[in-house]
């Protein structure tokens, strides 16, 4: 793209609340005292289950919903307080893409991408050049005159992304943008978002219910549950040492470390009388992720280890491993101390007789 690099804007949620009035009376709180700082130029994911309030959080950033408490600052501007023309000006600085694309069926690919420029009152000669640029960026040169009904899901989302970028926004909001796509297409769309973030330096805030999306592109993550931010930080740190049970349950889906059913069924929270096995979750982070720690444990302390489940993958560029193991509960303290000493994180999940 011909434009000079544009700096993204930060997004700050300050004790934000959003309450809806129910049709039959009464109030539902969708977001409650949520505070979060989204760094300028970073890709941040908000993850939560449906109904957790993540969509409301996102829609407050461009004023599609108005907060009922607290403040939202986009590049220092208070979105909740903006009205009319001032709000529309902020919205031109914030692009948005949607799960169901929301493309106009009556307009071609080029026409859809031109829409935000027409809305902004850009002269038509400029629109033409800009649209051609954007179409090229998202790799749809051959589809320029096609209608959305003739495109695949991935192509539709590329149009959505080009449209969101048309007014050169400082922030891009992604509302479950890959949830309607198959895994392969998801990867190409995520890669496109990554490239855009790198090339244009704009801030990307995305919401998702899939930890895999966060792992693949987000440098920062916030976990939302019942309208509250329960955990937030760098993706790597949250993956390596999740604090909240919700975060852990999201992680177990993506890290491939769910307990086998036959163990889960027999597991107890408290130590059993007599000989028993301790089930432990071990996290390998950074440079330790590839060390043969379990072999060393057996060699140095003579403790036999059962491997129940495990996976090693990459977050960003750093390796990251998860293992579920069990060993003799009598030697548990000793074994865990040894692993901790070598920079691994351990967590006792329970005991099996």
């Amino acid at each position, binding site marked *: 793209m011909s434009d000079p690099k544009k700096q993204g804007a930060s997004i700050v949620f300050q004790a934000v609340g959003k309450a809806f009035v129910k049709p039959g009376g009464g109030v539902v709180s969708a977001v409650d005292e949520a505070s979060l700082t989204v760094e300028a130029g970073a890709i941040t994911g908000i993850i939560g289950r449906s109904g957790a309030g993540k969509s409301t959080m996102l829609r407050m950033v*461009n004023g*599609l919903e108005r907060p009922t408490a607290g403040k939202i600052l986009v590049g220092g501007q208070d979105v909740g307080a903006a009205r009319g023309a001032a*709000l*529309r*000006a*902020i*919205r*031109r600085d*914030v*692009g*948005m893409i*949607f799960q*169901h694309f*929301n493309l*106009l*069926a*009556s*307009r071609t690919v080029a026409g859809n991408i031109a*829409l*935000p420029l*027409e*809305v*902004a009152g850009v002269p038509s000669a400029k629109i033409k050049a800009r649209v051609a640029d954007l179409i090229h960026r998202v790799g749809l040169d051959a589809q320029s005159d096609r*209608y*959305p*009904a*003739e495109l695949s899901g991935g192509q539709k989302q590329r149009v959505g992304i080009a449209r969101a970028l048309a*007014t050169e926004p400082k922030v891009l*909001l992604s509302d479950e943008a890959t949830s309607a796509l198959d895994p392969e297409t998801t990867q190409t769309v995520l890669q496109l978002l990554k490239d855009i973030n790198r090339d244009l330096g704009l801030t990307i805030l995305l919401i998702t219910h899939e930890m895999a999306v966060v792992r693949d592109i987000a440098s920062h993550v916030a976990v939302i549950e019942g309208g509250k931010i329960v955990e937030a930080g760098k993706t790597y740190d949250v993956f390596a040492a999740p604090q909240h049970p919700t975060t852990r349950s999201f992680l177990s889906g993506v890290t491939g470390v769910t307990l086998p059913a036959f163990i889960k069924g027999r597991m107890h929270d408290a130590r059993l009388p007599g000989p028993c096995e301790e089930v432990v979750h071990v996290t390998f982070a950074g440079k330790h992720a590839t060390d043969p720690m379990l072999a060393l444990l057996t060699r140095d302390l003579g403790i036999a280890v059962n491997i129940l489940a495990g996976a090693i993958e990459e977050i960003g560029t750093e390796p990251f491993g998860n293992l579920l193991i069990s060993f003799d509960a009598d030697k548990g303290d000793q074994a865990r101390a040894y692993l901790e000493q070598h920079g691994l994180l351990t967590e006792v999940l329970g005991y099996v007789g």
Partner: protein
Amino acid sequence: MSANLIGLLIDATWQTLYMVAASTVLGTVLGLPLGVFLATSQRGELLSRPWVNKVLGLVVNATRSVPFIILVVAIIPFTRMIAGTSIGTTAAIVPLTLAAIPFIARLIENAIREVDSGLIEAARAMGATPMQIIRKVLIPEALPSITLGLTLAVVSLIGYSAMVGAVGGEGLGDLGIRYGYQRFMPDVMAVVVVILVVLVQLVQSIGEWIAAKVDKRAPKGRGQ
């Protein structure tokens, strides 16, 4: 059938076309904004004016509940005010238009309401004004349905136009009643009916053809 009668039939056909075309155009010019407003002014919608919406809704329903033949007679003073006379083909355009406005408004309202709310949200997120959303999103997206709705309106107006003979509006319906019924000329009646059938058929086909032309929702040639 005498040359005289054939002349009458041709004149009557033109009169019908004139009344229907004029009332369709006027009814659309006035019914389109009304329909768009009805579709976008409930509480929480783009133009959110819940009370005006309710009042206009009541007026539209009231107008639509009056049988057309009664409307024609009831508004004779109004017709005289607008058209300068209450008798004749041009005068008949007034009640026809008055009946067309609420009918077309409801058809347009329904067509606009069918547009996916996600598109309105996307346009709002772009920073579009309510008027831009209406002009650039809602009306173009609803165009296939609007076209079919207007086709239905034209067909209905062809039917209504047969009743304006009651106030001296001429046209095919009037000819059928005066010659076919009152002067016992069943052949005139038959020809009038045939012309009306052909007209309606033609209007319907043209309407559907245009609607298909402007409808980009289904890919062509892939049989959806």
